[in-house]
């Protein structure tokens, strides 16, 4: 099973991007399953997405990197057994470190063969968050295979370059893509990375 973890701090645009990615991959005949661990401001309409051909599982009541690790593993087993997706997308809570989710999956979910970690950073709040939540943002970025600088429609080009440079200093191996998930700006290069 291939796994895509879409992580990032609260309000960074994870759900918006997840829905966009899932729709676009489904449109090119990919079987997509979604595991949602966050009840955010933007709800995941499970029934609608099922009609669109996706499978949605929700994990409530905690964080999948901590007390609900068993739920995550059991949900992955269920998704594989019932749906056999081409790609399973997990949205952990914004307070999670994706490295901890990866550790749980690597330790207890042998059906997962490939894991891709995508971390969103909010360009409009990057300066404040990087000063105030340095350890969390650093850990999130350092665990990423792809760092997506989101909400670029809300900042100028110089700011985007500065954020990209900071991200590069924290994780030189990660690919960096600048987008606006909501305005659907520059999503194609990101999708090419995912396919």
């Amino acid at each position, binding site marked *: 099973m291939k796994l895509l973890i879409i992580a990032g701090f609260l309000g960074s645009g994870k759900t918006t991007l997840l829905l966009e990615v899932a729709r676009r991959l489904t449109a090119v005949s990919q079987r997509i399953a979604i595991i949602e661990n966050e009840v955010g*401001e933007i709800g995941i309409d499970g029934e609608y997405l099922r009609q669109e051909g996706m499978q949605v599982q929700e994990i409530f*009541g*905690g964080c999948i990197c901590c007390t609900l690790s068993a739920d995550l593993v059991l949900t992955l087993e269920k998704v594989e057994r019932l749906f056999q997706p081409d790609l399973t997308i997990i949205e952990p809570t914004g*307070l999670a470190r994706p490295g901890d989710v990866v550790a749980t999956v690597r330790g207890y979910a042998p059906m997962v063969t490939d894991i891709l970690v995508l971390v969103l950073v909010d360009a409009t709040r990057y300066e404040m968050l990087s000063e105030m939540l340095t*350890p969390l943002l650093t850990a999130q970025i350092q665990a990423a295979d792809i760092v997506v600088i989101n909400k670029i429609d809300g900042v100028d080009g110089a700011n985007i370059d500065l954020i990209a440079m900071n991200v590069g200093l924290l994780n030189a191996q990660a690919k960096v893509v600048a987008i606006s998930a909501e305005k659907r700006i520059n999503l194609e290069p990101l999708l090419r990375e995912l396919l």
Partner: protein
Amino acid sequence: MARETMTSKERVEAALRLEKPDRVPIVPALMVAAASHLAGVSRAQVCADVNVAIDALLKVFDDFGGWDAIWQPVPDVPHLFQLILPMKIKVPGIDLPDNYVMQILEEEVLKPEDYDKIAEMGWFKFHTEDCIFRVCDTTPEDVTKWAIEAFAAMSRVTAEVEKRGVSLLLGSAAMHPFFTLSLGRSMVKFTEDLYYSPEKLERALKRLTAEFIQSTITACKVSGTKVGNCTEERASAFYYPLWVFERFWWPYTMEIVDAMWSEGLVTLFHMDTPWDKNIPYFKKLPRGSYILELDSTTDIFAAKEVVRGHGIIHGDVPAALYSLGKPEDMEAYVKKLIDEVGGDGGYILGDGCSTAADAKPENFRAMLETAKNYEFSKK
């Protein structure tokens, strides 16, 4: 094989004095999600009625042969939890399917202007006269009833533990002022407040701290316990750099611990997330005045080295081990905890955060049996 030479109460008290008891005391952090699962009752049932929740907890205690102290004074049923929690809760059986774990929603409940209100009128008055009605559809009469219900629940739990010859570990269930405000504002907004308007926030923290001290000391005295709870899941170096911790968390924490200690009370810090970089600060507190309740993401073995002979440690059987491991894995981990953390006393065996909501019964039993027998089997 050697046998027990202490009662459960003596064992816990020895650990609280940083001494080595006859064996490591066991206090699982059993909350309603796990208690209902292990007792075979639906989560909707325990969430609807605190007495059903107490029955479930006691059934687990009796069915599994008991342990040394019951962890919390009042089960965490949603409507009683709302008495201290400024957040909306989705409840199994009402908002969620019967066997889901209750869901706490991260939303902006408190507004920036509420900091001034809290500083002026105090948290308790603000919460019970205003905030609680923002997060649940209830009436002032119901809030009064819930407070009476919580007190009755604590009385019943206290009586039931006495009948079983054990004790209640915690006399209160409160959250650190920093955590309370972060939960109510949502972490995003709270972090913005720390950055843009710290003075307003600090005035509210000051008022909350004074009330925390007063209410926790009162609750411990009423329940006859020596330990007051202080939950904090968001101040560690997992999220914030140390300068934030030093300015917005540590001074209030020292004030709380000093006040509690002056009354002969120990403060238990329920510390979720990794606290490795923050642990050395606790050595500035009086010896024996605090318990670090670690959730398995902090390195408990390294923490022990830092606070050995100075602070008490409680924890940290990981949730994944309860839910996904085998009894032999559990046995091996509990032995390691006893050997490396419990070896010279000042240690209480417990769970990482709380007993996993979907713990396998055989793993829960393996934890208890290993802890009860391992040290005697070596003598």
